Protein backbone atom coordinates (compact mmCIF):
# COMPACT_ATOMS: atom_id res chain seq x y z
CA UNK A 1 0.00 0.00 0.00
CA UNK A 2 1.09 3.54 -0.73
CA UNK A 3 2.64 5.36 2.24
CA UNK A 4 3.16 8.89 3.48
CA UNK A 5 6.68 9.98 4.43
CA UNK A 6 5.87 9.37 8.11
CA UNK A 7 4.55 5.86 7.43
CA UNK A 8 7.56 5.05 5.26
CA UNK A 9 10.15 6.13 7.80
CA UNK A 10 8.41 4.49 10.75
CA UNK A 11 7.90 1.24 8.78
CA UNK A 12 11.58 1.16 7.90
CA UNK A 13 12.73 1.82 11.47
CA UNK A 14 10.29 -0.52 13.21
CA UNK A 15 10.45 -3.44 10.80
CA UNK A 16 6.68 -3.36 10.41
CA UNK A 17 4.18 -2.25 7.80
CA UNK A 18 3.30 0.87 9.77
CA UNK A 19 0.01 2.65 9.15
CA UNK A 20 -1.38 5.82 10.68
CA UNK A 21 -3.02 5.05 14.01
CA UNK A 22 -0.76 2.12 14.88
CA UNK A 23 1.79 2.07 17.67
CA UNK A 24 5.33 1.04 16.77
CA UNK A 25 8.60 0.63 18.60
CA UNK A 26 11.12 2.39 16.38
CA UNK A 27 14.90 2.33 16.21
CA UNK A 28 16.31 5.73 17.21
CA UNK A 29 19.04 7.07 14.90
CA UNK A 30 19.94 10.09 17.02
CA UNK A 31 19.01 11.14 20.57
CA UNK A 32 19.86 14.44 22.20
CA UNK A 33 19.10 16.79 25.07
CA UNK A 34 20.02 20.38 25.85
CA UNK A 35 21.04 22.19 29.02
CA UNK A 36 17.45 22.85 30.11
CA UNK A 37 16.23 19.28 29.69
CA UNK A 38 19.55 17.41 29.87
CA UNK A 39 20.13 17.42 33.65
CA UNK A 40 16.80 15.64 34.22
CA UNK A 41 17.60 13.29 31.31
CA UNK A 42 20.90 12.38 32.98
CA UNK A 43 19.24 11.89 36.36
CA UNK A 44 16.50 9.70 34.88
CA UNK A 45 19.12 7.67 32.98
CA UNK A 46 20.92 7.06 36.26
CA UNK A 47 17.72 6.44 38.23
CA UNK A 48 16.83 3.80 35.64
CA UNK A 49 20.02 1.99 36.59
CA UNK A 50 21.53 2.37 33.11
CA UNK A 51 25.28 2.58 32.73
CA UNK A 52 25.81 2.54 28.94
CA UNK A 53 24.49 4.51 26.02
CA UNK A 54 23.05 2.41 23.25
CA UNK A 55 24.86 4.48 20.61
CA UNK A 56 27.29 7.00 22.13
CA UNK A 57 28.36 8.57 18.81
CA UNK A 58 24.69 9.32 18.08
CA UNK A 59 23.93 10.72 21.55
CA UNK A 60 24.49 14.45 22.04
CA UNK A 61 24.39 16.86 24.98
CA UNK A 62 24.07 20.50 23.92
CA UNK A 63 24.93 23.52 26.08
CA UNK A 64 23.03 26.20 24.18
CA UNK A 65 20.12 27.65 26.16
CA UNK A 66 22.25 29.22 28.88
CA UNK A 67 25.46 29.73 27.01
CA UNK A 68 27.70 30.92 28.55
CA UNK A 69 26.00 30.29 31.88
CA UNK A 70 24.60 33.41 33.57
CA UNK A 71 23.99 31.72 36.98
CA UNK A 72 25.82 29.31 39.24
CA UNK A 73 22.92 26.80 39.25
CA UNK A 74 23.20 26.57 35.48
CA UNK A 75 27.00 26.36 35.65
CA UNK A 76 26.53 23.31 37.88
CA UNK A 77 24.06 21.82 35.39
CA UNK A 78 26.66 22.33 32.67
CA UNK A 79 29.26 20.48 34.75
CA UNK A 80 26.80 17.59 35.15
CA UNK A 81 26.26 17.36 31.37
CA UNK A 82 29.94 17.69 30.51
CA UNK A 83 30.93 14.92 32.89
CA UNK A 84 28.09 12.66 31.73
CA UNK A 85 29.20 13.11 28.10
CA UNK A 86 32.83 12.42 29.02
CA UNK A 87 32.05 9.31 31.10
CA UNK A 88 29.59 7.76 28.66
CA UNK A 89 31.38 8.74 25.47
CA UNK A 90 28.53 10.93 24.18
CA UNK A 91 29.08 13.93 21.93
CA UNK A 92 29.29 17.24 23.80
CA UNK A 93 28.39 20.48 22.07
CA UNK A 94 29.68 23.15 24.43
CA UNK A 95 28.80 26.82 24.87
CA UNK A 96 29.45 28.87 21.75
CA UNK A 97 29.00 25.92 19.39
CA UNK A 98 25.41 26.90 18.66
CA UNK A 99 21.74 25.94 18.93
CA UNK A 100 21.10 22.19 19.06
CA UNK A 101 18.75 22.11 16.05
CA UNK A 102 21.16 23.98 13.80
CA UNK A 103 24.02 21.64 14.70
CA UNK A 104 21.81 18.59 14.23
CA UNK A 105 20.91 19.99 10.81
CA UNK A 106 24.52 20.67 9.82
CA UNK A 107 26.17 17.58 11.21
CA UNK A 108 23.79 14.82 12.32
CA UNK A 109 20.30 14.53 10.81
CA UNK A 110 20.08 11.80 8.15
CA UNK A 111 17.15 11.32 5.74
CA UNK A 112 14.94 8.39 6.74
CA UNK A 113 16.15 8.17 10.34
CA UNK A 114 14.20 8.66 13.56
CA UNK A 115 15.63 11.60 15.53
CA UNK A 116 14.41 12.30 19.06
CA UNK A 117 15.43 15.30 21.14
CA UNK A 118 14.46 16.69 24.52
CA UNK A 119 13.40 19.92 22.88
CA UNK A 120 10.16 20.64 21.06
CA UNK A 121 11.87 22.19 18.02
CA UNK A 122 13.57 18.88 17.23
CA UNK A 123 11.05 18.91 14.35
CA UNK A 124 13.58 21.10 12.50
CA UNK A 125 15.28 17.88 11.29
CA UNK A 126 12.15 17.05 9.26
CA UNK A 127 13.57 19.37 6.62
CA UNK A 128 16.13 16.73 5.61
CA UNK A 129 13.53 13.95 5.64
CA UNK A 130 14.26 12.64 9.14
CA UNK A 131 11.33 11.69 11.39
CA UNK A 132 12.47 14.22 13.98
CA UNK A 133 10.30 14.86 17.02
CA UNK A 134 10.55 16.35 20.49
CA UNK A 135 9.99 14.49 23.74
CA UNK A 136 10.65 15.02 27.42
CA UNK A 137 13.65 14.09 29.51
CA UNK A 138 12.51 10.63 30.62
CA UNK A 139 11.61 9.52 27.09
CA UNK A 140 15.01 10.72 25.88
CA UNK A 141 16.83 9.00 28.75
CA UNK A 142 15.20 5.72 27.73
CA UNK A 143 15.93 6.34 24.04
CA UNK A 144 19.59 6.98 24.91
CA UNK A 145 19.73 3.77 26.94
CA UNK A 146 17.73 1.39 24.73
CA UNK A 147 18.19 2.97 21.29
CA UNK A 148 14.46 2.85 20.66
CA UNK A 149 11.20 4.53 21.51
CA UNK A 150 7.47 3.98 21.06
CA UNK A 151 5.55 6.14 18.62
CA UNK A 152 1.98 6.45 17.47
CA UNK A 153 2.19 6.57 13.68
CA UNK A 154 0.64 9.95 12.87
CA UNK A 155 -1.94 10.80 10.27
CA UNK A 156 -0.57 13.29 7.75
CA UNK A 157 -1.78 16.70 6.67
CA UNK A 158 -0.38 17.50 3.24
CA UNK A 159 0.58 21.12 2.64
CA UNK A 160 0.87 21.87 -1.06
CA UNK A 161 2.63 25.12 -1.89
CA UNK A 162 2.64 26.56 -5.42
CA UNK A 163 3.70 29.92 -6.85
CA UNK A 164 6.55 32.29 -6.03
CA UNK A 165 6.96 34.66 -3.13
CA UNK A 166 6.75 38.34 -3.97
CA UNK A 167 9.75 40.46 -2.95
CA UNK A 168 9.86 40.91 0.82
CA UNK A 169 7.97 37.67 1.57
CA UNK A 170 9.87 34.65 2.85
CA UNK A 171 9.47 31.10 4.16
CA UNK A 172 8.96 32.57 7.66
CA UNK A 173 5.93 34.52 6.45
CA UNK A 174 4.55 31.36 4.89
CA UNK A 175 4.82 29.27 8.04
CA UNK A 176 3.40 32.08 10.22
CA UNK A 177 0.51 32.35 7.79
CA UNK A 178 -0.09 28.59 7.91
CA UNK A 179 -0.05 28.56 11.73
CA UNK A 180 -2.58 31.39 11.72
CA UNK A 181 -4.80 29.36 9.39
CA UNK A 182 -4.46 26.07 11.27
CA UNK A 183 -4.41 27.45 14.84
CA UNK A 184 -2.01 26.35 17.55
CA UNK A 185 -3.73 22.97 17.87
CA UNK A 186 -4.91 22.54 14.27
CA UNK A 187 -2.56 19.62 13.58
CA UNK A 188 -2.08 18.15 17.08
CA UNK A 189 -0.57 14.62 16.85
CA UNK A 190 -0.44 14.84 13.03
CA UNK A 191 2.52 14.91 10.67
CA UNK A 192 2.76 17.83 8.27
CA UNK A 193 4.16 16.92 4.86
CA UNK A 194 5.28 19.85 2.69
CA UNK A 195 5.11 19.47 -1.08
CA UNK A 196 4.47 21.35 -4.30
CA UNK A 197 6.62 23.16 -6.83
CA UNK A 198 7.55 25.99 -4.43
CA UNK A 199 8.82 23.50 -1.85
CA UNK A 200 10.89 21.64 -4.44
CA UNK A 201 12.69 24.88 -5.24
CA UNK A 202 13.23 25.99 -1.65
CA UNK A 203 16.77 25.93 -0.30
CA UNK A 204 17.49 24.09 2.94
CA UNK A 205 17.45 27.27 5.03
CA UNK A 206 13.86 27.87 4.04
CA UNK A 207 12.92 24.25 4.65
CA UNK A 208 14.49 24.37 8.13
CA UNK A 209 12.54 27.52 9.02
CA UNK A 210 9.28 25.85 8.01
CA UNK A 211 9.96 22.46 9.62
CA UNK A 212 11.09 24.22 12.82
CA UNK A 213 7.70 25.82 13.34
CA UNK A 214 5.58 22.75 12.49
CA UNK A 215 5.29 22.14 16.24
CA UNK A 216 3.46 25.47 16.65
CA UNK A 217 0.44 23.83 14.99
CA UNK A 218 0.66 20.95 17.50
CA UNK A 219 2.23 18.67 14.87
CA UNK A 220 4.52 15.82 15.82
CA UNK A 221 6.77 16.23 12.81
CA UNK A 222 7.11 18.52 9.75
CA UNK A 223 8.46 16.46 6.88
CA UNK A 224 10.06 17.30 3.55
CA UNK A 225 11.03 14.79 0.86
CA UNK A 226 14.76 14.18 0.57
CA UNK A 227 15.77 15.34 -2.92
CA UNK A 228 18.52 17.01 -4.91
CA UNK A 229 18.47 20.09 -2.67
CA UNK A 230 18.95 17.83 0.37
CA UNK A 231 21.82 16.10 -1.37
CA UNK A 232 23.57 19.39 -2.17
CA UNK A 233 23.14 20.52 1.42
CA UNK A 234 24.58 17.32 2.89
CA UNK A 235 27.43 17.55 0.37
CA UNK A 236 28.18 21.11 1.46
CA UNK A 237 28.15 19.92 5.09
CA UNK A 238 30.78 17.33 4.16
CA UNK A 239 28.51 14.32 4.58
CA UNK A 240 27.18 13.70 1.11
CA UNK A 241 27.48 9.94 1.67
CA UNK A 242 24.64 10.14 4.21
CA UNK A 243 22.18 11.25 1.53
CA UNK A 244 19.43 8.92 0.44
CA UNK A 245 16.40 9.92 -1.65
CA UNK A 246 13.01 9.73 0.03
CA UNK A 247 9.61 10.57 -1.43
CA UNK A 248 6.05 9.82 -0.31
CA UNK A 249 4.30 7.19 -2.40
CA UNK A 250 1.92 8.17 -5.13
CA UNK A 251 -1.59 7.50 -3.76
CA UNK A 252 -0.69 7.71 -0.04
CA UNK A 253 -3.66 8.50 2.21
CA UNK A 254 -3.80 11.98 3.76
CA UNK A 255 -6.03 13.25 6.53
CA UNK A 256 -6.45 16.43 4.54
CA UNK A 257 -4.70 18.66 2.03
CA UNK A 258 -4.13 22.38 2.35
CA UNK A 259 -3.15 24.43 -0.70
CA UNK A 260 -1.21 27.66 -0.37
CA UNK A 261 -0.49 30.11 -3.17
CA UNK A 262 2.88 31.55 -2.15
CA UNK A 263 2.35 34.49 -4.51
CA UNK A 264 -0.68 35.68 -2.52
CA UNK A 265 1.19 35.97 0.79
CA UNK A 266 2.19 39.20 2.52
CA UNK A 267 4.83 39.71 5.19
CA UNK A 268 3.19 38.23 8.30
CA UNK A 269 3.52 38.92 12.02
CA UNK A 270 2.45 36.93 15.09
CA UNK A 271 1.13 39.30 17.71
CA UNK A 272 1.39 38.79 21.47
CA UNK A 273 0.83 36.31 23.15
CA UNK A 274 0.27 33.33 20.83
CA UNK A 275 1.94 32.26 17.59
CA UNK A 276 -1.38 31.71 15.81
CA UNK A 277 -2.42 35.32 16.49
CA UNK A 278 -1.22 36.39 13.05
CA UNK A 279 -1.82 39.49 10.95
CA UNK A 280 -0.35 40.99 7.79
CA UNK A 281 2.44 43.44 8.62
CA UNK A 282 0.31 46.25 7.15
CA UNK A 283 -2.06 45.98 10.14
CA UNK A 284 0.78 46.76 12.54
CA UNK A 285 2.79 49.48 10.80
CA UNK A 286 4.03 52.00 13.32
CA UNK A 287 3.99 49.75 16.41
CA UNK A 288 6.95 50.98 18.47
CA UNK A 289 9.69 48.39 19.06
CA UNK A 290 12.19 48.56 21.94
CA UNK A 291 14.26 45.55 20.93
CA UNK A 292 14.82 43.56 17.74
CA UNK A 293 16.18 40.05 18.16
CA UNK A 294 17.53 38.19 15.12
CA UNK A 295 18.66 34.59 15.50
CA UNK A 296 17.42 31.24 16.92
CA UNK A 297 16.86 27.81 15.41
CA UNK A 298 14.13 29.39 13.25
CA UNK A 299 16.04 32.22 11.58
CA UNK A 300 19.66 32.39 12.70
CA UNK A 301 21.21 30.87 9.57
CA UNK A 302 23.60 32.38 7.03
CA UNK A 303 20.83 33.09 4.51
CA UNK A 304 18.94 35.00 7.21
CA UNK A 305 21.99 37.05 8.16
CA UNK A 306 22.61 37.75 4.46
CA UNK A 307 19.12 39.27 4.14
CA UNK A 308 19.58 41.29 7.32
CA UNK A 309 23.04 42.55 6.33
CA UNK A 310 21.71 43.48 2.90
CA UNK A 311 19.10 45.70 4.53
CA UNK A 312 21.32 47.14 7.27
CA UNK A 313 24.22 47.99 4.96
CA UNK A 314 24.69 51.78 5.09
CA UNK A 315 21.91 51.99 7.68
CA UNK A 316 21.81 52.26 11.45
CA UNK A 317 19.43 50.90 14.01
CA UNK A 318 17.00 53.46 15.39
CA UNK A 319 18.55 55.10 18.49
CA UNK A 320 15.65 53.92 20.68
CA UNK A 321 15.68 50.34 19.40
CA UNK A 322 18.25 47.80 20.57
CA UNK A 323 19.40 45.24 18.02
CA UNK A 324 20.58 41.82 19.18
CA UNK A 325 21.88 39.24 16.71
CA UNK A 326 22.83 35.64 17.54
CA UNK A 327 24.17 33.38 14.76
CA UNK A 328 22.64 29.91 15.12
CA UNK A 329 25.98 28.09 15.10
CA UNK A 330 29.71 28.59 15.09
CA UNK A 331 29.74 27.61 11.41
CA UNK A 332 27.13 30.26 10.61
CA UNK A 333 29.13 32.82 12.63
CA UNK A 334 32.35 32.06 10.78
CA UNK A 335 30.69 32.16 7.37
CA UNK A 336 28.96 35.42 8.28
CA UNK A 337 32.34 36.92 9.17
CA UNK A 338 33.88 35.65 5.93
CA UNK A 339 31.03 37.25 3.98
CA UNK A 340 31.40 40.53 5.89
CA UNK A 341 27.88 40.38 7.34
CA UNK A 342 28.99 40.63 10.95
CA UNK A 343 30.97 43.82 10.22
CA UNK A 344 27.88 45.32 8.58
CA UNK A 345 25.71 44.38 11.56
CA UNK A 346 28.13 45.78 14.12
CA UNK A 347 28.42 49.03 12.15
CA UNK A 348 24.62 49.22 12.09
CA UNK A 349 24.61 49.09 15.90
CA UNK A 350 23.94 45.40 16.57
CA UNK A 351 25.11 43.61 19.70
CA UNK A 352 26.38 40.21 18.53
CA UNK A 353 25.79 37.29 20.89
CA UNK A 354 27.73 34.02 20.87
CA UNK A 355 26.11 31.24 18.83
CA UNK A 356 23.29 29.77 20.93
CA UNK A 357 19.68 30.45 21.94
CA UNK A 358 20.56 33.91 23.31
CA UNK A 359 17.45 35.95 24.18
CA UNK A 360 14.91 33.41 22.86
CA UNK A 361 13.76 31.78 26.08
CA UNK A 362 14.24 34.45 28.74
CA UNK A 363 17.37 33.04 30.33
CA UNK A 364 19.85 35.77 29.40
CA UNK A 365 21.23 38.08 26.70
CA UNK A 366 18.20 40.31 26.17
CA UNK A 367 15.50 39.97 28.84
CA UNK A 368 12.80 42.59 28.29
CA UNK A 369 11.76 45.27 30.79
CA UNK A 370 8.17 45.77 31.99
CA UNK A 371 5.98 47.09 29.21
CA UNK A 372 8.64 46.66 26.52
CA UNK A 373 8.04 45.34 23.04
CA UNK A 374 10.29 43.05 21.04
CA UNK A 375 10.21 42.03 17.39
CA UNK A 376 11.89 38.64 17.17
CA UNK A 377 12.69 36.15 14.41
CA UNK A 378 12.13 33.27 16.87
CA UNK A 379 9.26 30.81 16.91
CA UNK A 380 7.37 31.60 20.14
CA UNK A 381 5.86 34.68 21.71
CA UNK A 382 4.07 33.25 24.74
CA UNK A 383 3.57 35.53 27.71
CA UNK A 384 6.82 35.59 29.67
CA UNK A 385 8.77 33.78 26.97
CA UNK A 386 11.60 36.33 26.91
CA UNK A 387 11.87 36.48 30.68
CA UNK A 388 9.16 38.99 31.58
CA UNK A 389 5.39 38.34 31.62
CA UNK A 390 4.82 42.10 31.40
CA UNK A 391 6.41 42.41 27.97
CA UNK A 392 5.15 41.91 24.41
CA UNK A 393 6.70 39.78 21.67
CA UNK A 394 5.97 40.04 17.95
CA UNK A 395 7.36 37.42 15.54
CA UNK A 396 8.37 38.12 11.96
CA UNK A 397 10.88 37.40 9.21
CA UNK A 398 14.52 38.56 9.33
CA UNK A 399 13.71 41.18 6.68
CA UNK A 400 10.80 42.58 8.67
CA UNK A 401 13.02 42.57 11.78
CA UNK A 402 15.85 44.40 10.01
CA UNK A 403 13.71 47.18 8.52
CA UNK A 404 11.89 47.59 11.82
CA UNK A 405 15.21 47.98 13.63
CA UNK A 406 16.06 50.87 11.34
CA UNK A 407 12.70 52.60 11.76
CA UNK A 408 12.20 51.76 15.46
CA UNK A 409 8.70 50.54 14.68
CA UNK A 410 7.09 47.70 12.78
CA UNK A 411 7.77 48.38 9.10
CA UNK A 412 6.83 46.64 5.85
CA UNK A 413 10.00 45.23 4.23
CA UNK A 414 8.41 45.65 0.80
CA UNK A 415 8.84 49.41 1.19
CA UNK A 416 12.61 48.93 1.50
CA UNK A 417 13.48 46.35 -1.14
Amino acid sequence: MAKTLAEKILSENSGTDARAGEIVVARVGLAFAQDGTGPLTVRQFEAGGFTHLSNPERTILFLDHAAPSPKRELSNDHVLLRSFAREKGAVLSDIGDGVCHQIVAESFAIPGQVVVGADSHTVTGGAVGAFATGMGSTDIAIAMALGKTWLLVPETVKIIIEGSFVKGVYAKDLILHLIGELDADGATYDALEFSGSTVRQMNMSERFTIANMAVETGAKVGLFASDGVTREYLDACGRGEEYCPLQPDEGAVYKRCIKIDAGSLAPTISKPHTVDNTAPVTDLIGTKIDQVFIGTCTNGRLDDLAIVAGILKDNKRHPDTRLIVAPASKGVFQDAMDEGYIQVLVRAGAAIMPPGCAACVGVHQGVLADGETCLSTANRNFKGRMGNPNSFIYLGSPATAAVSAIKGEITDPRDFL
Partner: protein
Amino acid sequence: MLKGRVFKLGDDISTDHIIPGRFFHLRSNVPELARHTLEDVAPNLVLDVKQGDFIVAGRNFGLGSSREHAPLVIKTVGIGAVLVESVARIFFRNAINIGLPVLICDTENIDAEDELIIDMAKGTIEDVTKGFHLEFNKFPGVMIEILGEGGLLPYIKKHGDFVVSV
Protein backbone atom coordinates in the same frame (compact mmCIF):
# COMPACT_ATOMS: atom_id res chain seq x y z
CA MET B 1 -10.42 6.69 43.13
CA LEU B 2 -9.15 10.25 43.06
CA LYS B 3 -10.94 12.93 45.03
CA GLY B 4 -10.31 16.64 45.16
CA ARG B 5 -11.25 20.20 44.42
CA VAL B 6 -10.95 22.10 41.15
CA PHE B 7 -8.61 24.89 40.05
CA LYS B 8 -10.01 26.16 36.78
CA LEU B 9 -7.85 27.55 33.96
CA GLY B 10 -8.62 28.60 30.38
CA ASP B 11 -7.44 27.57 26.91
CA ASP B 12 -3.86 27.48 25.58
CA ILE B 13 -2.01 27.20 28.89
CA SER B 14 1.56 26.87 27.61
CA THR B 15 4.60 25.37 29.26
CA ASP B 16 5.87 28.96 29.57
CA HIS B 17 2.80 29.69 31.73
CA ILE B 18 3.23 26.54 33.77
CA ILE B 19 6.88 27.19 34.53
CA PRO B 20 8.38 30.29 32.89
CA GLY B 21 11.88 30.48 31.41
CA ARG B 22 12.96 33.02 34.00
CA PHE B 23 13.14 30.10 36.46
CA PHE B 24 15.28 28.06 34.08
CA HIS B 25 18.11 28.00 36.62
CA LEU B 26 15.93 26.21 39.20
CA ARG B 27 15.27 23.13 37.07
CA SER B 28 17.66 21.01 39.09
CA ASN B 29 15.85 22.07 42.28
CA VAL B 30 12.31 20.86 41.64
CA PRO B 31 10.80 21.72 45.08
CA GLU B 32 11.98 25.32 44.70
CA LEU B 33 10.94 25.43 41.02
CA ALA B 34 7.47 24.12 41.95
CA ARG B 35 6.87 27.16 44.15
CA HIS B 36 6.48 29.13 40.91
CA THR B 37 3.99 26.76 39.26
CA LEU B 38 1.52 28.74 37.10
CA GLU B 39 2.64 31.90 38.88
CA ASP B 40 1.71 34.25 36.03
CA VAL B 41 -1.81 32.84 35.43
CA ALA B 42 -3.01 31.44 38.78
CA PRO B 43 -0.86 32.92 41.54
CA ASN B 44 -3.17 31.52 44.22
CA LEU B 45 -2.72 27.90 43.13
CA VAL B 46 0.53 27.22 44.91
CA LEU B 47 -0.77 28.86 48.10
CA ASP B 48 -4.17 27.13 48.20
CA VAL B 49 -3.61 23.70 46.65
CA LYS B 50 -4.21 20.59 48.75
CA GLN B 51 -2.83 17.16 47.94
CA GLY B 52 -5.09 15.50 45.38
CA ASP B 53 -6.72 18.63 43.95
CA PHE B 54 -7.31 18.90 40.20
CA ILE B 55 -6.47 21.35 37.45
CA VAL B 56 -9.32 21.67 34.96
CA ALA B 57 -8.59 23.57 31.75
CA GLY B 58 -9.71 24.06 28.16
CA ARG B 59 -8.09 23.44 24.80
CA ASN B 60 -4.48 22.67 23.97
CA PHE B 61 -3.17 22.44 27.53
CA GLY B 62 0.63 22.29 27.79
CA LEU B 63 1.49 23.59 24.33
CA GLY B 64 5.03 24.73 23.81
CA SER B 65 8.30 23.33 24.97
CA SER B 66 9.31 19.79 25.80
CA ARG B 67 10.22 20.66 29.40
CA GLU B 68 9.16 17.70 31.52
CA HIS B 69 9.41 20.09 34.44
CA ALA B 70 5.97 21.39 33.45
CA PRO B 71 4.03 18.26 34.49
CA LEU B 72 6.63 17.61 37.19
CA VAL B 73 5.94 20.86 39.07
CA ILE B 74 2.19 20.30 38.73
CA LYS B 75 2.59 16.88 40.30
CA THR B 76 5.01 18.20 42.91
CA VAL B 77 2.58 20.81 44.24
CA GLY B 78 0.07 18.02 44.84
CA ILE B 79 -2.24 18.05 41.80
CA GLY B 80 -3.72 14.56 41.38
CA ALA B 81 -4.87 14.84 37.76
CA VAL B 82 -5.29 17.40 34.99
CA LEU B 83 -8.63 17.45 33.12
CA VAL B 84 -8.64 19.14 29.73
CA GLU B 85 -10.62 19.52 26.51
CA SER B 86 -7.43 18.73 24.59
CA VAL B 87 -3.73 18.44 25.36
CA ALA B 88 -0.52 19.15 23.46
CA ARG B 89 1.36 16.04 22.43
CA ILE B 90 4.66 16.35 24.31
CA PHE B 91 3.03 17.51 27.54
CA PHE B 92 0.66 14.53 27.41
CA ARG B 93 3.48 12.08 26.93
CA ASN B 94 5.61 13.70 29.65
CA ALA B 95 2.75 13.73 32.17
CA ILE B 96 2.07 10.01 31.69
CA ASN B 97 5.82 9.31 31.87
CA ILE B 98 6.02 10.86 35.34
CA GLY B 99 2.74 9.33 36.51
CA LEU B 100 0.46 12.38 36.32
CA PRO B 101 -2.92 11.46 34.75
CA VAL B 102 -4.14 13.85 32.04
CA LEU B 103 -7.79 13.14 31.27
CA ILE B 104 -9.41 14.39 28.08
CA CYS B 105 -13.08 15.19 28.59
CA ASP B 106 -15.71 17.91 28.23
CA THR B 107 -14.60 20.34 30.94
CA GLU B 108 -16.97 23.18 30.12
CA ASN B 109 -19.44 22.64 32.97
CA ILE B 110 -16.84 22.06 35.66
CA ASP B 111 -16.14 25.21 37.67
CA ALA B 112 -13.54 26.38 40.15
CA GLU B 113 -14.00 24.90 43.64
CA ASP B 114 -16.18 21.99 42.42
CA GLU B 115 -15.51 18.67 44.18
CA LEU B 116 -14.74 15.80 41.82
CA ILE B 117 -14.41 12.05 42.24
CA ILE B 118 -12.52 10.27 39.45
CA ASP B 119 -12.62 6.53 38.88
CA MET B 120 -9.53 5.81 36.79
CA ALA B 121 -10.48 2.18 36.13
CA LYS B 122 -14.00 2.95 34.95
CA GLY B 123 -13.01 6.13 33.14
CA THR B 124 -15.61 8.28 34.88
CA ILE B 125 -15.64 11.69 36.54
CA GLU B 126 -18.32 12.70 39.03
CA ASP B 127 -18.89 16.39 39.75
CA VAL B 128 -20.15 16.03 43.32
CA THR B 129 -20.93 19.73 43.70
CA LYS B 130 -23.16 19.86 40.62
CA GLY B 131 -24.29 16.24 40.55
CA PHE B 132 -23.32 15.16 37.02
CA HIS B 133 -21.13 12.47 35.51
CA LEU B 134 -18.65 12.57 32.65
CA GLU B 135 -16.48 10.05 30.86
CA PHE B 136 -12.91 10.66 29.81
CA ASN B 137 -11.32 9.46 26.56
CA LYS B 138 -9.42 6.19 26.43
CA PHE B 139 -5.60 6.39 26.22
CA PRO B 140 -3.44 4.39 23.80
CA GLY B 141 -2.73 0.99 25.42
CA VAL B 142 0.96 1.64 25.97
CA MET B 143 0.14 4.82 27.91
CA ILE B 144 -2.32 2.97 30.17
CA GLU B 145 0.42 0.48 30.97
CA ILE B 146 3.02 3.19 31.64
CA LEU B 147 0.61 5.11 33.88
CA GLY B 148 -0.38 1.86 35.59
CA GLU B 149 3.25 1.31 36.61
CA GLY B 150 3.48 4.87 37.92
CA GLY B 151 5.55 6.20 35.00
CA LEU B 152 8.03 5.28 32.29
CA LEU B 153 11.01 4.49 34.54
CA PRO B 154 9.17 1.96 36.72
CA TYR B 155 7.61 0.53 33.54
CA ILE B 156 11.00 0.01 31.87
CA LYS B 157 12.54 -1.30 35.10
CA LYS B 158 9.79 -3.92 35.24
CA HIS B 159 9.73 -4.96 31.58
CA GLY B 160 13.29 -4.09 30.50
CA ASP B 161 11.88 -2.85 27.19
CA PHE B 162 8.75 -1.53 25.49
CA VAL B 163 6.21 -4.34 25.35
CA VAL B 164 3.87 -3.00 22.72
CA SER B 165 1.75 -5.49 20.86
CA VAL B 166 2.21 -4.54 17.22
